[in-house]
């Protein structure tokens, strides 16, 4: 899962060193279902509703495990679940949710695949929605007709990606950066891989990865612990235990810089520049998180935005981020600028990156970032929707249960020396991949 910004802690915070904010920490409860799925629950009683999110280690990084050149398998498998299950077709499944006002969601990225339901708490709405979700999870039918239809739609979506400079840039960036690693393949698949895809691949993928031991269930809502326990147990009862997906292969870093310029008839050039970044649980996580916040991770407060946009008016948006995933995700810098100012804008980014790695952030920049991260913490968990997504991340990546409680402290423990050191060791301006999509002169 690609998350631009990372999570931060609950509980007692010292904000800005001025006032102490007592913030009721969501009480995360954790247990396992009898068939081995991890469950994470936060009771939330203010609104009569329930959010449930079931996440599987079944993203496109697993496509290679069903066969060669089959990217798109994970996405298609996830998408077909609600196209027919337990004797109901797509229409009936959708009606069953919508008749009780429940909203159903699903999706699949590189690491994670998920299904989610938001429902009213009243059992006359909640129970039918849960039964429907359970059927979709446990008894998908993978009909040939829906497979053909959804495959056609996916092909058009892949085609639409080819009219978007940002999409073209992103696909090429991952392909070049990750080479033989599964992260190199697009979740949506390619023209070639979608030609290879058969229904049997989806069935095999489902059988291997949609199993309890490979699942994390997150629940937030107006429920008691007992109710949540029963709910999670029932929901997954018909999934086999199975096995957890194996560890992803290691990622090879680039040994030298590489620049690719794709000619495209757009007004702007879309630029992505980066390298292999870090995985979840990396020892430098907090130092790099803080370093990135000040460099390009905090919008208007960031150095990139200041140098490129505010000082020179060269772009509407420019940013940088780490995507910590199971295997090291990328560190990426993004920019869009008018074709004829491409060299100037990239020159500035190059200079700033070099300077940042050499000298680190200024003391003021570091302080500002710490204040923003610490003081902004409550905003990150101010809704059930956000909390349920955070629970999924904690469960999926095996982060400690107190990960959130300790996040602000862990960030605050960083200082200039640690940040400078991490930057020097981890960011290599002389080994950057750059992908540009735009009209050449």
């Amino acid at each position, binding site marked *: 899962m690609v998350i631009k910004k990372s999570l931060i802690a609950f509980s007692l915070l010292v*904000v*800005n060193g001025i006032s102490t*904010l007592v*913030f009721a920490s969501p009480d995360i409860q954790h247990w396992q279902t009898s068939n081995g799925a991890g469950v994470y629950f936060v009771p939330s009683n*203010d*609104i009569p*509703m329930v959010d449930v999110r079931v996440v599987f280690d079944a993203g496109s990084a697993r496509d290679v495990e069903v066969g060669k050149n089959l990217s798109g398998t994970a*996405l298609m498998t*996830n*998408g077909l679940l609600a*196209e027919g299950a337990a004797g109901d077709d797509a*229409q009936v499944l*959708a*009606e069953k*949710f*919508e008749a*009780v*006002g*429940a*909203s159903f969601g699903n999706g699949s990225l590189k690491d994670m695949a998920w299904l989610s339901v*938001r*429902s*009213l708490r009243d059992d006359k709405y909640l129970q039918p929605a849960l039964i429907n979700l359970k059927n979709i999870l446990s008894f998908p039918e993978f009909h040939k007709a829906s497979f053909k*239809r*959804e495959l056609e*739609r*996916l092909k*058009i*979506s892949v*085609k*639409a990606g*080819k*009219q978007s400079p940002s999409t073209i840039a992103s696909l090429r960036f991952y392909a070049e950066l990750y080479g033989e690693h599964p992260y190199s393949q697009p979740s949506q698949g390619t023209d070639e891989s979608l030609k290879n895809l058969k229904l049997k691949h989806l069935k095999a993928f489902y059988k291997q990865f949609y199993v309890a031991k490979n699942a994390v269930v997150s629940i937030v809502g107006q429920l008691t612990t007992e109710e949540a326990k029963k709910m999670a147990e029932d929901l997954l009862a018909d999934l086999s235990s199975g096995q957890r997906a194996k560890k992803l292969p290691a990622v090879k870093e680039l040994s030298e810089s590489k620049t690719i310029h794709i*000619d*495209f*008839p757009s*007004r*702007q050039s879309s630029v992505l520049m980066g390298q292999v970044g870090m995985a979840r649980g990396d020892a430098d996580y907090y130092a790099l998180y803080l370093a990135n916040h000040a460099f390009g991770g905090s*919008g*208007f407060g960031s150095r990139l935005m200041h140098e490129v946009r*505010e000082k020179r*008016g060269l*772009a*509407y*948006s420019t940013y940088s981020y780490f995507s910590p995933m199971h295997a090291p995700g990328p560190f990426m810098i993004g920019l*869009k*600028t*008018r074709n004829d100012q491409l060299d100037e804008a990239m020159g500035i980014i190059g200079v700033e990156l070099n300077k940042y790695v050499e000298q680190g952030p200024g003391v003021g920049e570091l302080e*500002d970032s710490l*204040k*923003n991260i610490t*003081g*902004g*913490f*409550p*905003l990150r968990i*101010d809704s*059930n929707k956000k909390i349920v997504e955070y629970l999924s991340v904690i469960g999926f990546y095996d982060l400690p249960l107190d990960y959130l409680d300790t996040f602000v402290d862990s960030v605050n423990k960083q200082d200039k020396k640690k940040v400078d050191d991490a930057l020097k060791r981890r960011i290599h301006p002389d080994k950057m991949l750059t992908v540009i999509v735009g*009209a*050449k002169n």
Partner: protein
Amino acid sequence: MILKKYSALFALAGLLAGVSACQTNPGTHLQTASGKAVQTASESSVSESGVYSFMLKNGLKVLVKPDHRSPVAVSQVWYKVGASYEYDGVTGVSHALEHMMFKGTENLKPGEFSEIIAANGGSENAFTGKDYTAYFQRISSDRLELCLKHEADRMRHLQLNEDEFKKEIEVIKEERRSRTDDKPTSLTYERFNAAAFINSSYQQPIIGWMEDLHSMRLEDLSQWYKTWYAPNNATLVVAGDVDPQQVKKWAEKYFGVLQPSDIAPPKPRREVEQMGERRIAVKVPAKVPYLLMGYKVPVLKSLMDKGENESDIYALEVLAGVLDGGDSSRLSQRLVREAEIATSAGAGYDPYARQQTLFLFDGSPRDGHSVKELEAAIKKQIVAIQNKPPSRQELDRVKAQVMASSVYEKDSVFYQAMQLGTLETVGVGWQKKDDYLKKIQQVTAEQVQAVAKKYLLDDSLTVAVLEPQPTDTTKPRSVRRATGGRRGH
């Protein structure tokens, strides 16, 4: 389905078709310079849904929605000005001014407001629509006072600086390239909109035509600021972990000292009657064809102005729900899954605007089908509902979804504030939010059929088709392009 809303409609219709503010009804927010038009100056009242409202002596409307679930607050200041207030040659000036509102006041240097908010852990931005320009902060609730203090400052004490403007207008052009010029579906929407409206200012892109951005001057912005930025042309909405009495005190302290202006309402520019279908093609480098169809329909405000029954508005909302309110709705079921003509198909309607707007359809055909076939298939669905009311089951489904949404929306303090600000600023009054659920529940199947018959007429239809041209750059072609989005800062 794998691709829920691959269709661009909600990105476009929801955000761009936009909403508007009302100036046609004096009395509601026309204030004299002395503010005497407001008799009940500061008596606050609380509504059924827990919204506190009061007005300062200078005409600033204040709405407070306490919600103590989390120690956070949202502050939004909404101005009754946006792209639909603009005229030829200065399109985009509302949005350009919005950008410059971050560039310093008599008391703060450029960017300093943003720095203060960031240092206090807040996030902030702004957005411009057809009928509004709004500024917001999300922040830990013990820092709310800071937001009010500095919002009040820039309401009357902005310093427009030529050097900052020269850079910022280039940033805005980059924004336009990125949001519109390099996005074939956005570009199609912009041209579609310009073709659909004949004299209404809704034909103008929010971000402005590139030509107008090239010729925009700082004087255009300072004139705009003088004309529209005053307490009696604004609404402050505060939601979250706040005490209404405290908000009132701060509002009086910071905003209360500001002078009101004489605000002349914009010219009505109500759309003339359309007399037959309008149709355009947009040929740009692209890969996937795209269809947009729009029928002229009233909005809540236009019916209120005429003193007509508002039930049509809610019936149109339900009609949109029957056609495209989820995966079980008709367009997904019949066009995507059964006929397999569309790879995506959507319908949308936004009743909250100053003036009549469009009931929209959009979609892309499957390979092997043409845009023409897709258009015919959509029209077939329109005829079907004109000939026969929706089923009981369909109606119940839409109503259940609306009822559930009214609970789910409580999960977002920001969204609740958005709703209040929008309704107030387009001139229907924030209280209409309290009616919504009840009015939807009252809609009958026959009313849905009736509005489909009354409004979805061939003679009031506009159609735009994106006709993809090669993206291969070895075949150069000159393409002139343009579009607009609501968006900020």
